[in-house]
């Protein structure tokens, strides 16, 4: 294997590692052998070969593909046939979308970025997929493409009602191609390693809850069930270990009488199989609702691990939403909206107020908490400058077995602005919980068994 290729491979591996994908030396060597076996004739085969040897799970694939595109680009430099005529390009794009010709779409993406994506001085300081898409506006081609396809097939069969969605998916794919192409052009000008680390979106489980877009949240929601299954096995394992608990001294000594007072057989303390109770207090105000929704769904999916799960939602007033959540598992996307619509969460104003909400909880729903209850508070502790009502929190901690606070904000942000996080953190154990990975680790560790 020639040095430049080996170097290319190792920098690809380094970029993957920077995204938190663990790739060992052994796998890198395997990847090199795969490259040797496959040759460089077909780029897509090379992509699959490297993915098979370097990756360990399908969640890593969305990171791998753009990184691969940067290190093994489809072509170098500008496309041969450039165009500056916007209408002409749109015309050809519509035809390609109607025919669903993927190779042609990729070429058009290159032309589009070349023609409309450059900004700055004429040699171009950079390439922007946003600017390209803003000028080409592929989404406005829908009607034209639909007419084109229908004109060609002529029929109005049953499957034609799916046409709009299919065309939308093709347009979405084209947008992806443009983004890839823009990244490639930028990487040619600047440091490729930098772009591979910065411009590629992280894996879904490392996306910040607070900055996740709509589609990312939808993707996260799909991971709830598998994650819950994993956590359930982890809890079961912890339970098994805990069942073989500490030594019961009294019964060990009693048993030792038959062996002349020598404790031959230690007797272990038996645990009472009592399933713990769980209470969730969730801030569902706009800023953190993505985080709360996700956690609620996760806990709901884990509900058979507990004897009782009760979920309360608040903005500045608190209300129980356990029932909504039970029925809502089928339609996870609409959960947030339904909670907002059906529960009484706001009083005189619409912004969150932790002090009032927690006070109301301690007063009205205090009976929900007993000595076997573990309480999780989910929220950023941004209480809009009002009184944090530490007395109510103290009251809750006194009655509950444990209280944990999961905060979706970065730890360095706690206490800035209107955040009352440090005050609350003195009373309850507060953890930073910014993404699914952290949440999974925390839930697996903190949930009572």
């Amino acid at each position, binding site marked *: 294997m020639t040095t430049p290729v080996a170097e290319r491979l190792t920098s690809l591996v380094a970029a993957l590692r920077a995204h938190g994908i663990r790739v060992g030396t052994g796998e890198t060597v395997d990847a090199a052998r795969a490259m040797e076996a496959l040759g460089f004739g077909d780029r897509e085969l090379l992509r*699959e070969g490297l993915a098979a040897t370097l990756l360990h799970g399908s969640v890593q694939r969305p990171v791998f593909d753009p990184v691969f595109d940067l290190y093994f680009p489809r072509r170098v430099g500008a496309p041969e046939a450039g165009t500056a005529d916007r209408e002409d390009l749109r015309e050809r794009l519509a035809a390609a979308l109607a025919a669903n010709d993927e190779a042609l779409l990729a070429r058009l993406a290159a032309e589009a970025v070349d023609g409309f994506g450059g900004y700055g001085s004429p040699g171009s300081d950079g390439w922007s997929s946003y600017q390209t898409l803003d000028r080409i506006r592929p989404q406005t081609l829908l009607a034209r493409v639909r007419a084109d396809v229908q004109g060609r097939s002529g029929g109005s*069969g049953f499957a034609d009602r799916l046409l709009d969605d299919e065309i939308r998916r093709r347009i979405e794919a084209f947008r992806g191609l443009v983004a890839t192409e823009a990244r490639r052009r930028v990487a040619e000008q600047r440091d490729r390693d930098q772009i591979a680390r910065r411009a590629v979106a992280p894996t879904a489980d490392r996306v910040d809850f607070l900055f996740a877009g709509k589609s990312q949240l939808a993707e996260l929601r799909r991971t709830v069930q598998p994650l819950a299954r994993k956590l359930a096995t982890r809890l079961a394992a912890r339970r098994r270990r805990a069942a073989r608990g500490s030594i019961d001294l009294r019964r060990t000594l009693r048993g030792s009488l038959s062996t002349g007072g020598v404790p031959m057989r230690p007797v272990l303390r038996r645990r009472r199989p009592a399933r713990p109770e769980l209470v969730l207090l969730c801030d569902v105000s706009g800023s953190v609702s993505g985080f709360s929704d996700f956690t609620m769904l996760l806990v709901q999916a884990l509900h058979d691990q507990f004897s009782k799960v009760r979920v309360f939602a608040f903005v500045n007033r608190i209300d129980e939403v356990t029932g909504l959540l039970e029925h809502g598992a089928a339609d996870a996307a609409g959960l947030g909206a339904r909670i907002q619509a059906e529960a009484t969460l706001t009083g005189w104003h619409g912004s969150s107020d932790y002090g009032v909400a927690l006070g109301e909880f301690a007063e009205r729903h205090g009976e929900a908490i007993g000595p076997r209850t573990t309480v999780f508070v989910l929220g950023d502790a941004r209480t809009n400058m009002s009184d944090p009502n530490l007395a109510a929190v103290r009251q809750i901690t006194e009655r509950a077995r444990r209280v944990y606070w999961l905060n979706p904000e970065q730890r360095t942000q706690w206490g800035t602005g209107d955040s009352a996080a440090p005050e609350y953190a003195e009373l309850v154990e507060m953890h930073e919980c910014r993404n699914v990975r952290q949440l999974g680790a925390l839930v697996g560790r903190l949930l009572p068994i």
Partner: protein
Amino acid sequence: MDHPLGLYTATALEAPLFTSVDDVSARLAETGYLASPSVATTVFLADRLGKPLLVEGPAGVGKTELAKAVAKIAGAELVRLQCYEGVDESRALYEWNHAKQLLRISAGRDESWDEARTDIFSEEFLLTRPLLTAIRGDQPKVLLIDETDKADVEVEGLLLEVLSDFQVTVPELGTITATRRPFVVLTSNASRELSEALRRRCLFLHIGFPEEELERRIVRLKVPGLDAALTESVVRVVGALRAMDLRKVPSVAETIDWARTLLALGANTLDETVVRDTLGVLLKHQDDVLKAAAKLDLDAL
């Protein structure tokens, strides 16, 4: 390439099965398995690098079928280890035939203990289970470890020795090393996270739902009687259902079932009534059926 770290000395001991990726696709297709480029590439590499293949993906996309197809191509015996909760060493690896050992002891009453001992721990009394079967003998073999995620974590430890060195240690007999490496396929539905150590020893392949064009070819191959236009509509509807947010999206197996149903019903084209009446073949939850019916405008009648 040489490996200064000495990490990899493993190469396939015998001539590779395939000459190129296209060769893989063509020969898989002969057995009736239409492979996507990613499947063909990974199978080719698993053969070339002599590494086990870990296949993940939703139910019904042909993970197990892949192993069967490879076995058919190679003219190899398929050895299958079906994992389940509680599968253990004596089910996966080997077991001593106690009853036969007792018979042997009582049959030779007047021989010395030393003679009897060396005799009853010989191969004659060994019951080989799939993992040991797969690495013994000179015939080509394909080892399929199905639903690996269902097995307990302890079994993974067992697999590590077999999969990295292709050897099994039986204390009474010594270490048995493969004279001919089997082609190993592990499947998993990801109901449990497999350990990193096991993943590192394998090539990873995720089989997702096929592209439209490939799925059309699969339906045409499996249900040859269905008319081409109807096949296309079937695949398009299934594609649309997969894009919806359903509890259980239809897999390739369901597509084929649906195509067969339509053929049996003698439907010539898809219309609201046919789709509504047969949606149960594709979707297995009532919530999903209702949601899909709403999205496909089936209630418009």
